[in-house]
């Protein structure tokens, strides 16, 4: 009984513990609450919205890629399962739009050629220093894992893109610094990148600021976690399998233990009876009268 109570207490402590470690602990800068969206990729069976990914790629390509690289994505990823799933032809055509530096050739010269599926996304600047210099001293972070490198992930990127506001009266802003209520310290050195109609979607979707922000945040989430869909699918399967296994093992365990559990109770009873019997017969045999 006491032990039960204690395991109960331990469970409670365990859950408090898990909730303490898993969220508030690491978040120090208290920002404004992020805008929240019902992302299709959240949840146990969450998958990406294909057309949103394709539109997101378009936004990245036409707007963000002027400053931000995605150095760990390859053009072939665009046609892979679980991603935007462009057809292979489309992906090849996308890759071919880019000039890639290759070489050295047999003469020892570097040369440029058009991109292939196996190439990594071409970077807007050759290195961090060049990117920083071109952006007023602020490095536009590489976007390969950006969605995982910020608390809030997709919500954060979405909010940031919609978080540009006029600075409150009396707020000092240097040249090239903008007010954004979701950025740490509310100051960002990125010019507001999106405004209504910044791109023209070919599928007829209205290119509102919020729509583009949502699409590009989806795309960046995929870029950071290209195997998210397989992960979810494998996870659900693995856990279902585990549950079946647990049930089977549970009953085998019960069966195995029933050997000692019942044997034991019986044995103990028999033991007691044996002893009682022995004593009684001793008395009886010797002198039955002494009992009455």
């Amino acid at each position: 009984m006491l032990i039960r109570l204690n395991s109960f207490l331990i469970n409670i402590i365990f859950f408090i513990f898990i909730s303490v470690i898993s969220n508030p602990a690491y978040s120090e800068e208290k920002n404004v609450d992020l805008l929240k969206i019902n992302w299709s990729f959240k949840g146990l069976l969450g998958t990406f919205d294909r057309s949103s990914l394709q539109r997101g790629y378009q936004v990245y390509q036409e707007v963000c890629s002027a400053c931000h690289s995605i150095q760990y994505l390859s053009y072939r990823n665009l046609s892979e399962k679980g991603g935007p799933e462009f057809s292979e032809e489309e992906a090849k055509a996308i890759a071919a739009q880019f000039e890639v530096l290759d070489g050295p050739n047999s003469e020892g010269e570097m040369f440029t050629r058009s991109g292939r599926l196996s190439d990594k996304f071409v970077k807007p600047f050759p290195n961090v220093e060049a990117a920083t210099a071109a952006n007023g001293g602020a490095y536009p972070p590489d976007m390969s894992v950006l969605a995982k490198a910020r608390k809030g992930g997709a919500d954060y990127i979405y909010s940031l893109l919609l978080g540009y506001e006029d600075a409150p009266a009396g707020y000092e802003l240097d040249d090239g610094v903008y007010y954004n209520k979701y950025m740490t310290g509310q100051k960002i050195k990125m010019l507001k990148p999106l405004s209504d109609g910044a791109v023209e979607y070919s599928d007829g979707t209205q290119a509102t600021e919020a729509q583009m922000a949502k699409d590009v945040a989806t795309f960046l989430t995929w870029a950071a976690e290209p195997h998210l869909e397989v992960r979810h699918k494998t996870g659900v399967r693995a856990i279902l399998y585990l549950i079946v296994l647990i049930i089977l093992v549970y009953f085998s365990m019960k069966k195995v233990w029933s050997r000692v559990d019942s044997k034991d109770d019986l044995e103990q009873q028999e033991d007691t009876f044996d002893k009682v019997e022995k004593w009684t017969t001793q008395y009886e045999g010797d002198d039955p009268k002494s009992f009455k």
Partner: protein
Amino acid sequence: MSEEKYIPNSKIGQWFDSRLPLLTLSAHLREYPTPRNLNYWWTFGGILTFFLITQIVTGVILAMYYVAHSDLAFESIEHIMRDINYGWLIRYVHANGSSMFFLAVYIHIFRTLYYGSYKSPREVIWITGLIIYLFMMVTAFTGYVLPWGQMSFWAATVITNLFSAIPLIGENITEWLWGGYSVGNPTLNRFYSLHYLFPFLIFGLVILHIWALHVPGNNNPVGIDVKKNNNETVSFHPFIVMKDLFALLVFLIIFFIFVFFAPNVLGHPDNYIVANPLVTPSHIVPEWYLLPFYAILRAIPSKLGGVIFMFASIFILMLLPWLDTSKVRSATFRPLYKKFFWILVVTVILLGYLGAKPPEGIYLILARIATIYYFVHFLIILPLLGRYEKTSPLPLSISDPVLNKPDIVDKFKKIVGEYEGENVDSFK
């Protein structure tokens, strides 16, 4: 420990076993008599063994692709995550596996504290366990540095800098650890080397740990010695094996939820930013399982003092079997100890929480109180309890705890005794 000597059935078996008694060992492991009243807190030893093996297997696979160079480490991890078949799975299992490993070891340790399993004759099991725990921390810390993200770099900087608090030779030690004048490529290389080495040291220690366990046998929730070879014990196989397996599978559900649905919540987002010696993150925090020690470190106003107290908080546990002078093992029969046990649990969790908070204001005050209490628990409360606590009566055996049904045989004996007393002669 089995009574009769084991003899293999087959001729080959006998030939081999008489030269290298592996079969005898395996028979011993199968028959190992285990108290039948162990509860599920006793299944975590098996769970730990599983996670140790999981870490080693996934780690060896990761090592096939990982590049230990400060310019390439981050990229090589992304390569594993993106381009290697199921590389993401291997990496997420390894990363979250370490958290589960620590979760299990904390439960395992607090189980030991609650049931007094560290007391005579199990002191050596306890101490080998603590060395395992220390080695786990070394392994986890060096492992955390390998992805070469911002937290990797800065955690390495903060922790290695601690050694500079040592008077006179501190600076030299720190530079010696770095292999240079700051954390850099040489540091990464040696951390990788150590990270590969330590799990195998742990593996060896686990063998000693279990060997030491098999000398006195398991403690149990009642905390009194069991009588071997009667119905108070069951053979390890299949009884305990099945129970451990069941508990392991249930524990794996938690593990899978993290791996497949929240693989990054236990980590820090900053570790997805490549290490940059020029940019200090606003808050440098270790992984959650090291937070209590981080809180103690920062609670002490002097750097050297912090380091001393942090190490003392672990080494004091080595003395526990001698600090706790009570002869009664299980907290079930120690009403006061039980309360202090739970206060200690809360204190440690509080320290963990405070370790993640900036050391200022109320957080700092609480961290100081909790740190002091931690030491008071071991140095003052336990010795006093051993002397003054009034423990409840212990049962005679694990199968008839006094709490349970009244003992029929004893009662009957008493009655018989009365007759005996009255008329002894009639029995002979």
